[in-house]
């Protein structure tokens, strides 16, 4: 049986070889389903374009984010400043490209924290048959019922200065925001992983692995976890969007990044008092947040269709 040879180092190759020969491997099947979701495809294209712009555009657009020019205060979009300028005459395009890097990296990093914490807690809760599982689930439910934003604000209020002293202005705020957002968003992932584990651990192939003497760790890492990842990936995608919104919210409330680190939410915060005379200042970063979050949500929806083989389309 193929199952008994899986422990050998060549297992990967064996698993891949028939995949290439057959037209419908799980990966290609998922891609085929994903492609059907036109909006998800469009969202993916927009996200890739945005990521490329954020990474590559600073090579061509060499205006500094803190170039103060009082002759060009609050100008609307023009050729020299495609997105206009703010109240100090700073170029908004450069600031938004910088802010995009901050917002997207906060989103990705916070999502990674949430997924790692959630997967570990969910896996432990899903594998344990005793009191530990129910205790962890009680903890998860407890965290789920906490008001996220007030708690975030409280933690940032209490720890901001210490971390700033430890890791510098930019690094301190970044670490704090990522850890706190990630640390308060792991609960849905933990519940998903636990639910998957509860059903997967009773499946025959896991039983077979157990009968062959696989240790608990090996059962989890090689057999259960890979099969539980589909919903986790979907939840992770949505988490990126949630983290971006949360970071922007914090910055918008004036409690996230400081003004010299223009994340999109921070630009909006600075712009909100000039809505009547310089609406472009608020509209560009707001539209950027909206477009990013919308694209991520569509991609997540497409992935949900693509990665859930039980759903018949």
């Amino acid at each position, binding site marked *: 049986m193929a199952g008994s040879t899986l422990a050998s180092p060549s297992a990967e190759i064996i698993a891949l070889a028939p995949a290439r020969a057959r037209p419908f491997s799980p990966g290609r099947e998922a891609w085929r389903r994903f492609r059907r979701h036109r*909006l998800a495809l469009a969202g993916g294209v927009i996200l890739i374009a945005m990521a490329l712009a954020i990474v590559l555009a600073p090579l061509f657009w060499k205006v500094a984010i803190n170039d103060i020019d009082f002759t060009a205060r609050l100008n609307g979009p023009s050729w020299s400043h495609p997105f206009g300028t703010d109240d100090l005459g700073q170029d908004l395009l450069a600031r938004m490209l910088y802010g995009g890097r901050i917002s997207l990296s906060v989103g990705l990093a916070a999502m990674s924290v949430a997924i790692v914490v959630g997967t570990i807690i969910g896996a432990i809760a899903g594998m344990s048959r005793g009191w530990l599982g129910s205790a962890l689930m009680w903890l998860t439910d407890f965290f789920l019922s906490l*008001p996220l934003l*007030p*708690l975030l604000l409280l933690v940032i*209020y209490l720890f901001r200065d*210490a971390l700033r002293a430890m890791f510098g202005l930019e690094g301190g705020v970044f670490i704090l925001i990522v850890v706190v957002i990630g640390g308060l968003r792991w609960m849905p992932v933990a519940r998903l992983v636990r639910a998957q584990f509860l059903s997967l651990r009773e499946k025959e192939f896991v039983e077979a692995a157990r009968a062959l003497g696989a240790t608990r760790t090996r059962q989890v890492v090689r057999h259960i976890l890979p099969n539980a990842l589909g919903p986790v990936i979907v939840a992770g995608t949505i988490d990126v969007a949630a983290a971006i919104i949360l970071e922007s919210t914090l910055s918008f409330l004036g409690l996230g990044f400081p003004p010299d680190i223009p994340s999109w939410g921070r630009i909006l915060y600075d712009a909100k008092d000039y809505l009547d005379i310089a609406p472009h200042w608020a509209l560009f970063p*707001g539209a950027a947040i909206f477009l990013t979050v919308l694209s991520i949500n569509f991609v997540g929806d497409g992935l949900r269709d693509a990665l859930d083989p039980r759903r018949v389309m």
Partner: protein
Amino acid sequence: MGPYVLRRLLILIPSILGISVLLFTVLSLAPGDPFEELATNPNVPPAVRAALRAKFGLDDPIAVRYLRWLLAMLKGDWGFSFVSRVDVDTLILQRLPTTLFVIGSAQILALLVAIPVGVYAATRPYSVFDQIASTFAFIGFSLPPFFTGLLFILVFSIQLDWLPFVYRADIAATGWRWYVEHLRQAAMPVAVIGLFLGASLTRYVRSAVLDVIRLDYVTTARAKGLAERVVITKHVVRNALIPVVTLVALQLPGLFGGAIVTEQIFRIPGIGSLLISSILANDTPVVMAVTFVFACLVVIFNLIADIVYGWLDPRITFR
């Protein structure tokens, strides 16, 4: 129903205790002395400072401090604000009704939008209406409340000049005029939170109705010759609402988050803007108390959701 409600009420106690432990742990883990403002004042000599610390018990073990704090909170002694020199509980009680009014109206608006749209879309799956509704739902929950709020101000206050963008608690008018003014100023904040919540709720309602509408008893109801309207309202919607109640409860933390943001944008004098202004002013007692109140509100509304859940689905009260 009685024992069920009682059981839920008893679960309330460990939740609130848990929240208080969490908040107190966060506070005591925080670096620096939260009462530094008083302690580092150069006009206070070191001996007086030490006496003050001893008097307030700041050097006691953490468990003792927690118990003392908890007892004080239970007795209603929430401390007083460093900034406005008022008791914290009076400060919060002054502002709580405004927040509850805005949040409550927003939740009602969300349900008023989500249930009809979701049900109608689910009865005609993949129709044009369904696709438009689901696209709008996606747009709705991808628009962060702070941006929607700014857009609303830009369109309705600045361009069209229809609605005021500053919320005032003291409207100098009486009778009908007072209600009209109140509606005008509450319209935008309520719409911002309500539409954000309603958008994701619409999707949940739609999928919940889709789950129910395929069941055999619905076919039976149709076969009995009941009108489609009766089948939908009496047989489908009531059962589809059961999971929706859970989702409304799960959305509550988000609802309070949205409230903080909109209160800040529209300058609503509620507890959300109180939280932000006290954070900016380093007013620790108020920050702690408001966070605690937010957490308790979520727990209490969860309890209400549980009771509604038991009323909609009597089976779970006999568990």
